[in-house]
């Protein structure tokens, strides 16, 4: 089914938490393991706008539908950051923009070269690269949903669960956009399929891997994706990715967990 961009933009809202009793965390705080994972998620959500630059260094920015989606997508993800930062705030952990800036300033050369690398690749393969970006975006958003749902299940805190489910529901609309774009574009081009398969297989890593320390990535993956239930969630993501044209048999999430040494 085609994605209705006008309907999406008209109904895009910032995630709401006014009705949730977050004050209770002053008395009954979440555990340290969860707070560490939430902190990771917060940073990743705030960082989303920076990924826009990678998506836009390709011909995709010329397309109105893509621009409309990205405008709303950036804002929704920013508000996910704000929502999670508010939960952290009730635990005395303040995430402010200046501090996020300090983290980004540490990123160094790789961060500076990334846009160039992406642009060059985008220019080399032209329109087919948009398909790769869309498939990549779909994989990221699918894993975000699983991560939020897993967190909600593991924490067993009803208030947090409501907030995380709200965030996951917005991520589901992002998945719908990315997968419908990826499916259409991959279906039209064998070359795009080959390229997407290669890039996903070779380079995909859990969201946040490029901006967070490896120790934090390992912590979050251990927390959310280890054990039989974690693997089950990983396989669900892989199954969705495999359903896209030319992606059959890909198991990039499971592979990335193995690479990080996360126990099945």
């Amino acid at each position: 089914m085609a994605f209705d961009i006008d309907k999406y933009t008209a109904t895009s809202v910032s995630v709401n938490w006014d009705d949730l009793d977050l004050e209770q965390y002053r008395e009954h705080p979440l555990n340290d393991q969860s707070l560490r994972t939430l902190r990771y998620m917060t940073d990743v959500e705030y960082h989303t706008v920076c990924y826009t630059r990678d998506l836009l260094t390709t011909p995709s920015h010329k397309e109105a539908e893509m621009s409309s989606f990205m405008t709303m997508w950036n804002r929704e993800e920013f508000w996910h950051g704000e929502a999670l930062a508010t939960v952290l705030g009730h635990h005395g952990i303040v995430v402010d923009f200046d501090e996020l800036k300090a983290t980004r300033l540490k990123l160094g050369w790789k961060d500076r070269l990334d846009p160039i690398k992406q642009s060059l690749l985008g220019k080399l393969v032209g329109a087919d690269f948009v398909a790769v970006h869309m498939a990549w975006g779909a994989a990221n958003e699918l894993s975000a949903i699983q991560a939020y749902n897993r967190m909600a299940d593991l924490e067993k805190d009803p208030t947090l669960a409501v907030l995380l489910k709200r965030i996951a529901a917005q991520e589901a609309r992002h998945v719908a956009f990315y997968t419908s774009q990826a499916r259409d574009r991959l279906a039209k081009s064998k070359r795009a399929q080959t390229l997407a398969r290669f890039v996903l297989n070779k380079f995909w890593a859990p969201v946040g891997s490029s901006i967070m320390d490896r120790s934090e990535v390992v912590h979050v993956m251990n927390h959310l994706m280890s054990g039989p239930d974690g693997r089950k969630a990983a396989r669900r993501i892989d199954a969705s990715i495999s359903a896209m044209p030319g992606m059959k048999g890909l198991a990039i999430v499971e592979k990335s967990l193995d690479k990080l040494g996360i126990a099945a």
Partner: protein
Amino acid sequence: MTTHSDPGAGDDRGTRFNVREFARTARGNHRTELDLAEFATSPLNGETLHAVRYLGRLESATMEHLRNLLVTATHKDARVTAFLVTWAFEKFWLADALDAVLEANGLPRAQDVEEGRKRRTVSESHDRRGPIRRAISAIRLGVPIIALHMTTGLVDEWVTRAAYEKLSAAGDSASLRSTIAMILEVKSRHAAFFEDDARRRLAEPAAARLTAKEIVTQAWPIGAIDRSAEDRTFFDEYVFGGDDGRARAVAIEARIAALPGLDQRVAARIRERLVP
């Protein structure tokens, strides 16, 4: 991972523009508040509609601009990126409001009309650079480039405000005037952020030097470089042509000259680019 527990430390210290408050009170879809009925009986003239369509194209070209900014060190400043997320969102809906005016006048939305060929003057080649060249040159320029981007945002606000004011005065339409009043109200917060941030950054000599050197090579307003030559020629003449237009450009020139670290020479070169 660094965290600290000082609830007083946000982005709203002192008189600094409050980005969180701006994001929280962002204004989206304007369709229900627009008064468009008037156009059914007294439609706008062709020139006015041309200006409306072009301004809509400029307002909606945020993602191209974000790309140019985010391939540089500007992406590292989380306060700036947080602002830009909401800025793009509000501009999306300003463009939609302008589309609503076009539709009420029996015209298609701006994005559904083919744009003509771009202008290819040699003096603008610097501004035509793609993301790869921008990213490479930005490595050398480092963090001071944020001052250039914030100052460009500020001058862009002044230039587009001049255009909206001309448009508001030109058409004899109460509906258009109220739509533009709403647009200018939304945009006033964008100008406030850019002004606050640009002034702080231009106080650094290295940032001011870089800004003075680079800002004179840009096409105005932001995004014009990707628009059609025909639209741009129309806009330049419409807003900055004739004696009135010249006076508007001179007023912008004076404001630029008064910014810290920029001087009359820089301001005059920008004015020359505005006036047809």
